[in-house]
C-alpha cells in the first residue's frame, strides 16, 4: 500500500485516495465538431501499461483535491506528484 504525497496535505496512506484513471486526457472543447470515432477515442480509449504511467488521483478522504501522479506500475514507485494544470515534471 503506497504512501502518497498529496501536493496539498503531504504524505498520507493510500486508503485516503482514489484513482481516477489516465491523466492528461482533455475533454474536447467542441464535442459537436467531432466524428463518432473521434468522440469514442476520447470517451473510451485508455492506456493500461506496465511501466511509467500518468494518473489522476483524488485525495477523497482528505482535502478532496484532484492531482496528477507519475507511477511506475511495474514496481509501484511514485516518481512525481503535481497539481492539476501543471506540466508533468518528467517525460
Amino acid at each position, binding site marked *: *500500500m*503506497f*504512501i502518497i504525497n498529496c501536493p496539498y496535505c503531504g504524505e498520507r*496512506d493510500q486508503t485516503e485516495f482514489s484513482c*481516477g484513471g489516465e491523466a492528461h486526457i*482533455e*475533454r*474536447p472543447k*467542441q*464535442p*459537436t465538431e*467531432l466524428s*463518432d470515432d473521434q*468522440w*469514442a477515442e476520447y*470517451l473510451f480509449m485508455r492506456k493500461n501499461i506496465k511501466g511509467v504511467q500518468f494518473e*489522476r488521483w*483524488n485525495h*477523497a478522504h482528505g482535502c*478532496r*483535491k*484532484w492531482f496528477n501522479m507519475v507511477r511506475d506500475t511495474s*514496481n*509501484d514507485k511514485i516518481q512525481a506528484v503535481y497539481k*492539476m*494544470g501543471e506540466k508533468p515534471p518528467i517525460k
Partner: protein
Amino acid sequence: MSKNLRINKNNFIDQTTRISFKFNGQKLFGYKGDTLASALLANNIHLVGRSFKYHRPRGIMTCGSEEPNAIVQIGNDPSLTDPNVRATEIELYEGLDASSQNCWPSVNFDIGGINNFLSPLLPAGFYYKTFMWPASFWEKYEYFIRHSAGLGKAPTKSDPDIYDHQYSHCDVLVVGGGISGIISAKLSAEKGLDTILIDDKSFLGGSTIYQENECYKINSINSNKWLANEIESLKNYPNLIIKNRTSLAAFHGYNYLLARESLTDHLSVNERKGKVRQRLWKIRAKKVIIASGSIERPLIFSNNDRPGIILSSSIKKYIDYYGVKTGENISLFTNNDSAYETAISLYKSGVKVNVIVDIRKNSESLIVKKALELGLKVLWESTVVDTQGYKRIKSFEVMKLSDDGNNVVGDRSKYNCDCLGISGGWTPMVHLFTQSGGKLKFRNDDNAFIPDENKTPSNQISVGSCNGEFKLNEIVVNTIENLKSFLSLSNSCYDEIKIICPDEKSKRNIWLLPSDKPIGKTKPFLDFQNDSTAKDVKLALREGFKSIEHVKRYTTTGMGTDQGKLSNMHALGIIADTTGTNMGELGTTTFRPPYTPLTFGAIVGRNVGEFFDHTRKTAIHNWHVKNKAEFENVGQWKRPWYFPKNGENMHQAVQRESKAARDSSGILDASTLGKIDIQGSDASEFLNRIYTNAWSKLEIGKCRYGLMLNEDGMVYDDGVTTRLGENHYIMTTTTGGAANVLSKLEDYLQTEWPELDVYLTTVTDQYSTISICGPNSKKILAKIVPGLDLSDNNFPHMSFKNTKISNVNCRIMRISFTGEHSYEINIQSNYAEDVWIKCMEAGKEFNLTPYGTETMHLLRAEKGFIITGQDTDGTLTPSDLQMDWIIGKKKFDFIGKRSLYRSDTIREDRKQLVGLLTEDPKEIFEEGAQLVENINKKPIEMLGHVTSSYFSPNLNKSIALAVVKSGKKLKGKKLIVPMENKNINVTITDTVFYDKENKRLNA
C-alpha cells in the same frame, strides 16, 4: 502405549506445572511451555492424522509453522472450534481438547485408507482426469471429494471472541527474534530508533537459545549463554517494543506490514474471558529488517512419510528445548553437518543414535569429529531406500550410493528404529522478502534461493539465515556489518566480537534419492500435506507441463495450508534434474500472503455486526422508531419503508398510505436526498454544463427539475435544483447518488473547468426535508406558517420561499414527486423532529398520514416518474426514457450531449421506457420479469423487462413500468410476461397512469 519420554533436566519447560489436555478423547498430561506436539511426543504419540489423498497415517514432522501433517481441530464448541491449527505451534493450556482432522471414523482406523492400496489409480491430475464426465455427475463427485478431503470443520455459530486492529508507526521493524534479529533490534535501539521486534514464538532466541554446544562460542562463552545475556540487555531500551506470539502475515509495498498477535490462545478457557483474542497490527515502518530464519529440508526417498520420520533439527529442538525424546531407537539420515548437532544433543540427553546415514563421502568438520569421538556410527556415501511400519516407522533399509550418486549399489541392509531424523539442508525463508517485491537469485553452492541485494526494495534488508547465511560467524559478523550501513552506524557495541564455530566444507545434494526399484514402484513423498510424490511431478513433466506454476497446480504440490514450505525446493530440483535445466532459470513459485493462515476474526477485527458499516439515520429517526416504522436500507441510510398499523402487512399499509396521500394528505421524511449548495458567479453556467436543460434564465426563487448524464449519454442522476439567489443554488440528488454526484461535479470543476468560479458544499446532513403532499397539504402548511401567502399567485408550483417556523429560518419548496399539490420544508436538522411533530399535530384533522419509501415509489409510478437506479441502469438515454423534452437541443454543450447522437444511441430499436397494464387488473408481476412476444418460437426472444410494478389503490388496478425494445413505437401492443407457473398478458401503454393533465398539482 502410554510411555513417558520426558527427560528431567531442562531450562525451558516448567516441569512443576502439570497441564492436562485431551487428544482424540484420550486424557493426557504435559507441562507449561509445551506445544501440543511436544506434549504428544512426550506421551509417545506420533500418529496425528491421515494424508489428504491416500489417507496414509502421518505423524508430527517438524516443530514449527512449516508442519504439513500435525493439523488439528481445537475444541468442538460450535462457535469456538478452530480448524487447521498446527499442533507444533499451539501452546498447551489446561483443558485443551484437540482432535485429528482428515480421518474417518478415527485416526487408527480410516476408511479412506483404501485409497492407499488404490494409489496406482490416483496419479497426478487424478481429480482433473476422473471427475470430468458427465457433467451431471458432478454433484455426486463433489460429495465424495468433500467427504474424503475432510479438512477441518468450520464453526457453525458466530464467533464470540473479541479481535482488534491497531496501527503502528516505527523507525525500524525487526521480524524474527533469532540471533540475527536480536542483534538487529539491539543495534537499532542503541542508535535511539523507535524499534519493534516481533517473533511468533512465546520466547526469544530462535534455534541458538537452546544450542548448548562447546563447538559454538561467542566472546569465549557458549553461543546460547551469550544470546541469553543479549536478550536480557534488551530490557534497557525504552524505545524498543518486543512482541512475542506475533507472526508476520504480509509484507506489502512501501513497508506496510500486517502482523497477528495472539493474546489469549495460550491461556486456559477461564483466563480468556473479556480479553482480546488476537490483534492485527498494521505497521508502517521506515525500515524493515527481515530475520525470518530458515527451515530444514526433508529428504525424498520411498516411504519417507511414515509417523516417526521427523526433521533432524526438530528432533534436536524437542530434546534440547522441550526435553522430549522423539523415540528410544533413533537413527539419522542426512546430506549435511547439522544432523551431527542433533546426534550430540541426543547423546548428552542419554539417547545414543543408532546409525547416521550420510550421502556424502565424508566430512572433516569439527562437529562431525566430535560426533565420531562419541562413538557414533556413520554410514558414509549411503542412502535410505525404503522404510517399514504402518502407524509408526519400525525399520529402514540402506544401500550404498554409486560414485556419481545416480544409482545404488550392493545389497540392502536393514536397521530397526522407532524414529528416523532426516536432514536435507536448509532453505532460507524468503517469503516475506518476495512478498515485498524483492527478487531472488540462485546459489548453486547449496542450491538455495537467496535475496538478490541488487533487486531488494529500498529501506529493507534481510539478515541471518533468511539471507542465506548459515554459519554462526557469518550470521553474526555479516548482520553487524550490513546493519552498520543500513542504519548508518559508525561503530557498534559488537565491534570486538569473537566467534568460534565449526566449518562445513563437504556438500552433496540429491533431490530425489536413487532406489534399487523403478520409480513406479516407490512412494517418495514431496508434499506431505497434499500427498504428491516425486512420481507425480515426473508424470506431469511427461504429460507436457513445463512451467513450475502449472506443475504445482496439476500435482497440487505446494498447494496446502503450509504453502509448500517443505516441498517447493524439491519439486523445483526434480523438475530441473528431469528436464536438464538449471534451477536458477526455472525460478520459484510466487509466495502470497498470508505467510501463515490468519483467522477471519483477526482480519475483520471490530468491524462486525453494527460496526460492519456506517449507519446513517435522519434527524427524525427516533419518531419513526416510536411510530413503529419498518425500515429499509438505502445505501447507508435507514429509511422508513412503511408504517404498519394494527397488524397490517406491507401491502395493506402501503395501500392505505397511498390512498390517504391522494385523498387528503401524506407526510414523508425526505432528508436522505442529497443536497449540494452551489455558489459562485459562474454557478448558472456550471449547471448549464452538467444538466441537459437550460438554467441561465431560471428566475431567483424558482425550482427546476434536472437530468444529469454521464459523458456516454446515459442517465446518471436527477433531482430538483432551486435558485436561491443570483449566484446561489441548492441542488438535490438521489439518496444513493449523493456522494458520487458531488465527486463527479468536483472532478469537472477542478480538472476540466478550473476557470469557473463555483463552490460546492454538501449540506445533506445539515438540512432535513419534510415533504407534505395531498389536496389538504396547503391547509396544513397554512397552520404552521400562518403569515405566508400560499396562493398560487404568490407561491406557485416550482417555486420556493424563505420563511420561519417558530422563529427558525427554513426554506419551503413547492415541488412534487407524487403529482399532488405538495411542499418540502427544509430546516436545520436539529429542529427537524420538532417541526415534523408540529406538522403531525396540524395535520391531525386532515388524516395526515406518514408514509415511507414504498408508498413514495408507488405514488410516483402512478405518475410515471422515474427513479434513477430502479427504472434506469446506466444503459438508458433521456430519449430512451421518453424524456426528450428535457434535452436543451440549442445548448452548445453539456455532459453527455455528444453521445446522444452516436450511431448506437440513435438506434430506434433500443430499449425504451413504457407503461404496462395487465389484462387482469388484479394481476401483479414481479419486478425484473421478462417481456416476450411469442413463447412458441424458440429460442424465445427477450424484448425487455419490468422495472417497477405496483397495485395502485387510487386506480384500483395493477400498473407497471418496463423497458422494451422499440417500446416507443409499440403503444397498444400486447405482450406476454412468462412467470414460473403462468403467462401474464399485458398491453403497452403510456408511462403516465394517473392525472395525465397534471390538474392535481394545483388542486
